[in-house]
């Protein structure tokens, strides 16, 4: 009744106003659009700008002057990325490092997750806590700790020399070895935790049945456990692979100064050379490279919402 007494414009407004459901979805949607989607569009825009010495250090794409609107698209940054060997080498080394990090994490993480999932329940909780604890501790401090272990007079070298395995200190950091130690160390929990969550939920009666029917342990593993745990594996692998492509801190502290990963190149473009359009173009290329694995992650995540 009250509705009919309202003036027409209020009725029109009410019709166009979203209902409770509209607000409930619309507000967080708008938040994500503004602070997640819009930034990407900004990066895309600035990647086509020209680098200048002004503040901010790039030109506008749209210039309105003398009765005409000019759109200036500058492809220089993309050309630089295609032509400059540094970028190609950086993308290649990032993808390689991410690939092998994932591989080593899987190699160590799978048996770890399986052993924990098969442990007695009381021990299982303790072991799980043991995996989670370093995960909550400052990541920076844990990476830093490896410097103390791997450097020339560090723990590892002193142990090796004490045992007579080496006469001179071995170069264990600022090279590929140090980089991988740091990467595997930091990303291993991201492999173990989703794998564990998957393995512990797996129906234990299937491997049992196979064993009862006379299958050897390795047959049980390769024909039953491994195929059934593939979704857990893909979740863990993607959680390790995608972020490690853009890793900055570990290569900076433990890796060699020669082999540049793309995260470090972007960082120095941005902070040291103040080449924002170039850094933006590098970001766009990186997003394009990661689109496929991200889409895959999206599928895995939707199928298994509690994987993380």
């Amino acid at each position: 009744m009250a509705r009919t007494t309202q003036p027409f414009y209020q009725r029109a407004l009410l019709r166009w106003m979203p209902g409770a459901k509209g607000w409930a979805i619309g507000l967080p949607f708008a938040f994500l659009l503004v602070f997640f989607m819009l930034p990407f569009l900004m990066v895309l825009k600035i990647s086509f700008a020209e680098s200048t010495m002004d503040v901010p250090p790039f030109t506008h794409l749209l210039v309105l002057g003398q009765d005409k609107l000019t759109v200036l698209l500058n492809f220089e940054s993309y050309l630089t990325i295609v032509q400059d060997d540094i970028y190609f080498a950086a993308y290649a080394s990032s993808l390689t490092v991410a690939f092998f990090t994932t591989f080593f994490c899987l190699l160590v993480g799978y048996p770890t997750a399986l052993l924990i999932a098969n442990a007695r329940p009381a021990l299982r909780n303790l072991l799980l806590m043991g995996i989670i604890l370093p995960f909550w501790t400052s990541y920076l401090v844990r990476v830093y700790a490896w410097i103390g272990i791997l450097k020339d007079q560090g723990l590892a070298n002193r142990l090796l020399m004490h045992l007579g395995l080496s006469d001179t200190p071995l170069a264990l950091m600022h090279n590929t070895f140090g980089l991988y130690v740091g990467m595997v160390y930091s990303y291993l929990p991201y492999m173990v935790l989703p794998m564990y969550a998957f393995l512990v939920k797996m129906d234990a009666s299937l491997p049992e049945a196979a064993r009862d029917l006379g299958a050897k342990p390795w047959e049980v593993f390769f024909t039953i456990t491994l195929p059934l745990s593939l979704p857990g594996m893909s979740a863990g692998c993607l959680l390790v692979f995608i972020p490690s492509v853009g890793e900055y801190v570990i290569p900076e502290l433990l890796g060699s100064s020669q082999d540049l990963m793309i995260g470090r190149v972007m960082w120095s473009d941005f902070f040291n050379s103040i080449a924002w359009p170039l850094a933006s173009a590098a970001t766009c290329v990186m997003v394009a490279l990661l689109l496929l694995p991200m889409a895959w992650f999206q599928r895995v995540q939707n199928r298994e919402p509690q994987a993380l």
Partner: protein
Amino acid sequence: MKHLRRHLGSGFLALVFLFFYLPILSVVVYSFNESVIASQWTHFSLKWYAKLLGDSEILDACRTSLELALATACSSVVIGAWIGYVLANYRRFWGSTLFVAMVNAPLVLPEVISGISLLLLFVSLEQTLGWPQGRGMATMWIGHTMLCVSYVAITVQARLSAMDKSLTEAARDLGAPPLRVFFDITLPLIAPSLLAGWVLSLTISLDDVIMSAFLSGPETTTLPLALLSRMRLGLNPEINAIGTLIIAVVTLGVVANSYYLMKREQRQARHLRMAVLNTSSEGRVAQSPPT
């Protein structure tokens, strides 16, 4: 053969845990080392902790980090819970695929990407709207919140999906308005996941390096940023001391949480046993005894 396999398994796990804990132990041990050369053990001393107390740069950074982390945890829980609620209750709506993608992507997206893009957004906003003026606490707060909301959203969504739908339906059938249903029924039921999300956001924010590096201003330095700039210069025993303090707090928290969960599990198991006993002895469905 079976024994051998079990020993192999235990040995492997022991090695993995050694790999996990050796660096942490070394930080703790060397933080009590008197020597300036961080890897040479001379004798026990608390001098790095004393030095820490007089280090105003680190103390200021600590305060900034704590304030930022508290603000981030609160905002992330509110926004993340809202997103989780939408994910759990509305399966398909206009743009739902994009919505879900925007929630899941930050879980894996390299932070360099989100850092650069948010910074460029803020610079463009400053040019066009005049806000934010420069970078500092506010920009870092938004950046850290973006890092954390997805984790909270997923935790809350999982909890809501596991929740018994009939509870809210019953309340609505009895005439409770939607907001009342939310505050009286849904909120208390998802409270544990909100707390988990709050603590997780707090640690993510306290630990973050890259987002802060892009979004911090000249006057605001967080603890990880201050630590990183010292680490670049080489080993510094003070870092061991602050690392040990962080490790101590985290260990206490995780152990207390695990203890609480274990006790709760035992209590539930006991209730279940008693319920079963009552049913079998009295031949009726027993009510669970009071806690």
